[in-house]
């Protein structure tokens, strides 16, 4: 009896809500009744399609976020046929005409991730539910990317990741609705190791300082794997809290550890601080085991390298892209970006710009914004002319495979932007791995159109 009552109660409440919603919809928007049912969430009905740009606008990565936003705005301009078209002129397999996407003008809304997972999810949710965004993109942290990707999968929209370098984004946390153009720690390890071997030899002992979150663990694992396989030993791998500020208590044990290489698995502010302090502790002037002590920063960012000043000079790392590349795609992008804003784009800006174009192109190819159609178009999509050489969006994990840049802090910069020197362009074949390799295996699941 009581069950019946509950059932009755539930049904009647739901019925009431349905009725109110129908009435509200009928009163507020009579056109909704004449249109067909939505095939997927946020199906654009008018003359525009809305994209959601979710970037850090406050907090430690605000400058990087601002650069991402500049790139997104530039991409929207190019998609709508304004400006010089940028990489639309150099991208191969491009079906975009510079007249919007699928006949619709591209519009956008923005959110602030604050580089915090909960804030990023909240702003993505707002853009999906309130602003009708059909795709979410951006971010400057793997923690944030994984959180927002999960949300987009549930909500039924596409997530085009911004700057995220942890293997997990397209590894164990990969999702059918999520795509990453940026490279990852596995690729950094594979690309860096041969250079480290050539420069520093095979008889080395490394000491890792690692940011204590998804990306740091991923990077530590990858660098350890590749350096140990070429004969290096690992003295210790110490986890440091994110945003520690003063790293001296973690650097002092390095001095007497017997290690002759310090690997800083830190990004952004942490990298600037730990590197500055490691240099102050005389590590770069030190001789250990009869060899010059070395510091390696596996993931470089030019924006952040500025903060490390002199200390970054001569230090090896890897990067997804640099404005000094001279291929046609990079030149076209640097030209548009430079003309618009007066300075060169960062790697974060590059990946975000490319992601937007790739998404738009996939929609145009699919002839729809339906996530399932877009996913079909993006999976296995091969392209070139976007700054990284021939690239493929691998269907098995939604990770882009392309060449990786090994760089070094420029010892003799010709300008204030000339901070990184490209040491080698590691070919794609050398950094490619199996999608079901241990540590990166995961399930994509099914596509979710949300409706």
């Amino acid at each position, binding site marked *: 009896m009581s069950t019946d009552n509950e059932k009755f109660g539930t049904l009647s409440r739901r019925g009431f809500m349905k009725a109110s919603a129908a009435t509200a919809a009928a009163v507020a928007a009579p056109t909704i009744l004449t249109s067909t049912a939505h095939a997927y969430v946020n199906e654009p009905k008018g003359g525009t399609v809305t994209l959601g740009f979710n970037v850090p606008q406050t*907090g*430690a*990565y*605000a*400058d990087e976020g601002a650069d991402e936003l500049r790139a997104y705005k530039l991409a929207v301009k190019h998609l709508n046929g304004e400006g010089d078209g940028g990489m639309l002129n150099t991208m191969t397999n491009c079906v975009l005409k510079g007249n919007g996407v699928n006949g619709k003008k591209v519009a956008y809304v923005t959110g602030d991730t604050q580089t915090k997972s909960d804030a990023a999810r909240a702003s993505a949710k707002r853009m999906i539910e309130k602003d009708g965004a059909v795709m979410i993109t951006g971010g400057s942290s793997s923690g944030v990317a994984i959180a927002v990707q999960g949300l987009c999968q549930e909500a039924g929209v596409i997530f085009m990741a911004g700057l995220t370098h942890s293997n997990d984004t397209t590894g164990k946390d990969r999702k059918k609705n999520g795509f990453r153009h940026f490279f990852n720690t596995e690729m950094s390890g594979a690309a860096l190791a041969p250079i480290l071997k050539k420069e520093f030899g095979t008889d080395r002992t490394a000491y890792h300082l690692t940011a*204590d979150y998804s990306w740091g663990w991923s990077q530590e694992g990858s660098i350890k794997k590749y350096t140990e396989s070429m004969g290096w030993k690992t003295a*210790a791998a*110490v*986890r440091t*809290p994110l*945003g520690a*500020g*003063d790293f*001296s*208590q*973690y650097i*002092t*044990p390095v*001095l*007497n550890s017997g290690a002759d290489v310090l690997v800083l698995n830190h990004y952004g*502010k942490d990298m*600037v*601080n730990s590197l*500055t*302090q490691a240099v*102050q*502790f*005389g590590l770069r*002037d030190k001789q250990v085991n009869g060899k010059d002590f070395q510091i390696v920063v596996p993931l470089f960012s030019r*924006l*952040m390298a*500025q*903060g*490390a*000043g*002199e*200390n970054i000079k001569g230090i090896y790392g890897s990067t997804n892209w640099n404005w000094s590349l001279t291929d046609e795609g990079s*030149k076209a992008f*640097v*030209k548009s*970006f*430079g*003309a618009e*804003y*007066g*300075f*060169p784009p960062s790697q974060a800006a590059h990946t975000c710009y490319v992601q937007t174009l790739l998404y738009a192109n996939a929609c145009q190819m699919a002839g729809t914004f339906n996530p399932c159609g877009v996913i079909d178009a993006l999976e296995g999509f091969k392209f070139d002319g976007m700054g990284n050489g021939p690239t493929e969006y691998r269907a098995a994990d939604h990770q882009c495979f392309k060449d990786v840049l090994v760089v070094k802090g420029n010892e003799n*910069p*010709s*300008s*204030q*932007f*000339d901070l990184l020197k490209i040491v080698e362009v590691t070919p794609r074949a050398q950094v490619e791995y199996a999608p079901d390799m241990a540590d990166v295996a995961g399930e994509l699941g099914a596509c979710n159109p949300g409706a």
Partner: protein
Amino acid sequence: MDAILLQVLNGLDKGGAYALIALGLTLVFGTLGVVNFAHGALFMMGAFVAVSVQNLLTISMKVRDTSITFFEAYKETPYLEVWFGDVGTTIIDYSVPISILIAIPIMLLIGLAMERGLIRHFYKRDHADQILVTFGLAIVLQEIIKANFGANPIPQSAPDIVAGSAAVGALIGAEGIVYPWWRLIYLAFSLVVIGGVFAFLQFTTFGMVVRAGMYDRTMVGLLGINIERRFTIVFGLAAVVAGLAGVMYTPILPPDYHMGMDFLVLSFVVVVVGGMGSLGGAVAAGFLLGILQSFFSMNEVKEILPGIDQIIIYLVAVAILLIRPRGLMGKD
């Protein structure tokens, strides 16, 4: 053994920084009774005085890099170097010590303006109101700095002569121990400043009146002494101490707009552990927590208790509050 000695040094050095920031905080609380959440922002403003001085000294002659056509890129040579050669280079090299001299009057003015303009209106209000208004002020100051200097850290360097490490171990027969010169200077600097503030309060008439005011403000007022004005000066003094701590810290931690907030929480823990309003307590707690943090960051300790380095300070604070709620040297 070497490792322990290094961590002792490291702890003292960290402790010096904590004590210096906490000192100003507790001075303001002890005199004005105000919980100043903008104290961290004063530390940050000090650091940005150093950044501004460096920017001024390195105003540069720009030579366009003509190989780049898409935007304007320059190779910059500071005018001081162009005009004065090596002398100019030396002046730029000493930008942090020069900033110290410049920061004193600037921070004093900022402190006085802050107290006269805002904080004094909140003396008679709840601590909650004081916290809200000073926290709000801290955010405003941060955003002003961010709007002008960006969010990325800006590198500052110590003079070349002290940029490297000192072989401190040689003094005690442990050759392997080196420690950065600048950190040793920071430790010495913090000891001198702390000593100076104590001497000022202990051995001058002004200091005596301030101490009397801290003890019984009404009574001192009734004796015809304008205690308000003295407390304003104390606020200015606290701002100078925080600002100098910030200037001196820039070669260790490239400053960014958020550095004050990062230190604020820690310095509050230091003040609470030391005892609210107790100057000696703040200094003792600063050094104590610095040393504890260093020791609990040793790999040997972290192997047994992973992650302990990240929570030890707060664990100690919890323990002290449970066992001795008034703090190490706080009065009931």
